[in-house]
């Protein structure tokens, strides 16, 4: 049946026989798409007298908004922090592969690096929509170098920096440009950080607290100046203490202004965080939980040694360590693995697990008016799953970009 051409000649697709995640619940509803956006079928019917050109039978699958990974350092042998002459090829390669994990948009992440690397890598990638070529690039996540030496984790110590003496000016000189940067992770206890946080927020860049020894009041001050996220909760920060909860205390802080949410990344790979800790965080502040992979170069590769930034790491099973140590170097779990593990470990509902990988990262980045929900007018980036939350197919702007077994 042809659609009505009076408003748009674009073909209309109707996903039938599915359960969609909308309004925080799984509902038996058809999903309509036109022009890469989710369409209101009631308006289509009454205003345009229109109907679907194509019906896709989802065989009772779950349809959720496409997953958004706000912290991913590379994968399949690609290291985003490596200053090659063709960074674009690497980012594009990973962007294509992560479609298999249900990721439709992501923030390529750079770990602490010397200024030359930022100056070389940053200009080569622009924010761009996803498609059959791969997941969309939402902007860089710059994790470092303005972090604490004591909590550097796998970051190379020689390239850490402070905001002395020039503050934001120093930051600009280090990074070179902030075009195409979506998020910066920094340690708020560094002197001069408040002005930097304000300046970044004013430019629409999200500030995430991490790799820090800040206490709770320092973290709260940073939030008051505009910081809104926490980088991989529990890892690379002061452990929770009952008289000084540290950054972890932000989850239940009463100093957060009304209407503001503090989002926190969680690496739910079963390794970086004990399931009991995951549950404590989830129960304390469920609406702020953002699943991230923090995936490294070795994700998708066989066991052995590989490079990450300026260092060498070693894969042992599902673990990735800084070579020769027991310091975790990042994760090699995929986003869909994280969603499944999170659901299992926390005992949460399917809807919550899916929102932690879609709605919450979209909200954390301030793009939930475009992505992260299956509401009318939003981008039709979708993931089709079975009841065990395995990915069956991935769609970007309403077009199928990956199908299992295809």
């Amino acid at each position, binding site marked *: 049946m042809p659609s009505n051409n009076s408003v748009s000649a674009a073909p209309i697709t109707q996903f039938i026989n599915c359960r969609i995640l909308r309004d925080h619940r799984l509902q038996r509803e058809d999903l309509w798409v036109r022009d890469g956006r989710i369409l209101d079928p*009631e308006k289509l*019917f009454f205003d345009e007298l*229109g109907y679907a050109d194509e019906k896709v039978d989802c065989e009772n699958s779950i349809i959720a908004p496409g997953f958004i990974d706000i912290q991913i350092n590379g994968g399949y042998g690609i290291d985003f922090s490596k200053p090659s002459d063709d960074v674009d090829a690497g980012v594009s390669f990973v962007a294509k592969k992560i479609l298999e994990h249900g990721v439709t948009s992501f923030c390529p992440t750079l770990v602490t690096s010397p200024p030359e690397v930022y100056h070389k890598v940053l200009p080569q990638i622009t924010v761009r929509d996803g498609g059959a070529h791969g997941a969309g690039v939402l902007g860089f996540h710059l994790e470092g170098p303005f972090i604490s030496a004591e909590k550097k984790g796998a970051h190379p110590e020689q390239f850490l920096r402070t905001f002395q003496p020039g503050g934001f000016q120093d930051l600009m000189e280090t990074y070179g440009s902030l075009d195409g940067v979506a998020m910066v992770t920094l340690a708020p206890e560094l002197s001069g950080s408040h002005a930097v946080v304000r300046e970044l927020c004013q430019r629409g860049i999200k500030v995430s607290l991490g790799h820090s020894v800040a206490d709770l009041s320092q973290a709260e001050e940073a939030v008051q100046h505009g910081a809104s996220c926490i980088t991989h909760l529990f890892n690379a920060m002061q452990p929770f203490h009952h008289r000084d909860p540290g950054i972890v205390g932000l989850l239940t802080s009463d100093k957060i202004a009304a209407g503001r949410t503090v989002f926190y990344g969680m690496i739910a790979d079963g390794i970086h965080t004990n399931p009991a800790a995951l549950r404590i965080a989830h129960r304390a502040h469920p609406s702020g939980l953002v699943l991230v992979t923090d995936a490294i170069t070795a994700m998708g590769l066989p066991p052995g040694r590989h490079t990450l930034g300026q260092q060498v790491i070693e894969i042992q099973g599902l673990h990735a360590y800084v070579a020769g140590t027991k310091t975790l170097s990042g994760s090699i779990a995929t986003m869909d693995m994280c969603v499944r593990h999170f659901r299992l470990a926390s005992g949460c509902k399917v809807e919550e697990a899916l929102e932690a990988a879609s709605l919450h990262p979209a909200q954390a980045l301030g793009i939930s008016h475009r992505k992260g929900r299956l509401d009318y007018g939003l981008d039709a980036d979708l993931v089709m799953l079975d009841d065990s939350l395995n990915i069956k197919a991935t769609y970007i702007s309403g077009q199928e970009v990956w199908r299992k077994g295809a």
Partner: protein
Amino acid sequence: MKLIILNDYDEASEWAAKYIRNKILLFKPGPNKYLTLGLPTGSTPLGCYKKLIEYYKNGEISFQYVKTFNMDEYVGLPRDHPESYHSFMWNNFFKHIDIRAENTHILDGNAADLQAECEAFEEKITAAGGIELFVGGIGPDGHIAFNEPGSSLVSRTRVKTLARDTIMANARFFDGDLAKVPTMALTVGVGTVMDAKEVMIIITGAHKAFALYKAIEEGVNHMWTVSAFQQHPRTVFVCDEDATLELRVKTVKYFKGETVYKSFTSSLFFVKNCCP
């Protein structure tokens, strides 16, 4: 009239749905021969719509060549308000079947000229060749559509102020807040429904029992507008046991005695041979 008494709401809904289904099948609608139906809203026909959707999904019927005219719509309620009758019809019926939007007609309660909208609606019915079967319900005050007590029995489609009873009955759909309930509606007239070739009224529940009694056991009276159908040549009242609670035992026994009605509704034989 025919009074069909079923055991409960589900059976009554199924009977009504089968009646409509058989009507479509017998009529054999096509591109040059549309079947026109008049349709109601409210909780009573929900079960009937569910069954019709089931018959469509089973492949038994298609609504491709069916035209529909709804009875009424609130005035001033945005079309996409969850309680508008447009929303009701979309969510409970249209979105589940293969009907084309241009074949559905619902009064526009936000039209700039409400009177003109009503007149145009009457013209559309005429242009479609009149209504073959008008399905309706009954209010606790005996009204058909929004033809409240006191409505002319020869009335046409027009704007009506809602009775207090109706507003109170509708409050449950507006968070129990009387202030939020629309006070006016566009409605087909009693005369409009009387023009249909056939009328089927679905009445279920004890709270409708008194209205049914007034409609069929007392005289034709504009205070109980459904009573007008005593003067229609082909009316079917489909009800459940609870709705008959105010009727005389004699009436119920008479109509129940005709057990032939129940067994034949599943076959086309009934529709073809038992309708006067």
